[in-house]
């Protein structure tokens, strides 16, 4: 599941835009899963704090990493390991 799909679902759930089936299914799970309820509550809190739906997301759009850079990093690791 992508970030976008995850956020969209939660937005729809919180703004009551899901179909009756989807909603029932999801809420059936929440009824028996305390960690998920906790997560959802903290997510709602974050939205209420006005930061919008984009907090809790730390991943930046990834960059292309050239192969020689990967090798350079692995090389410095193996030097470190050999100490």
């Amino acid at each position: 599941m992508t970030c976008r799909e995850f956020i969209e679902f939660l937005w729809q759930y919180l703004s009551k835009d899901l179909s009756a089936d989807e909603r029932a299914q999801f809420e059936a799970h929440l009824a028996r899963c305390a960690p998920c309820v906790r997560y959802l509550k903290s997510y709602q809190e974050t939205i209420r704090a006005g930061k919008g739906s984009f907090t809790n997301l730390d991943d930046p759009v990834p960059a292309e990493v050239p192969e020689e850079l990967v090798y350079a990093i692995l090389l410095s690791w193996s030097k470190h390991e050999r100490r």
Partner: protein
Amino acid sequence: MITCRDFIEFLADYLARELPAQQHTVFDEHVADCPNCSAYLRSYTMTVKLGKAACTDLDGPAPAEVPEKLLEAIRAARSK
């Protein structure tokens, strides 16, 4: 009474609720009375949101700290 210049200069403090109560009220009143500053406020807060969101990878995987069971429940609900 404050000018638009004053409003904008102390806008960050106003939004962070770090102004003394009396000043905060003066700022509230200015927003209510001044459509230009009301619009500026809107675009300023939107700028902050846009900055955060634009630097975030929405097409990457769901955030790491989401409980796996929650993701499963969402997938299950979606597949209905």
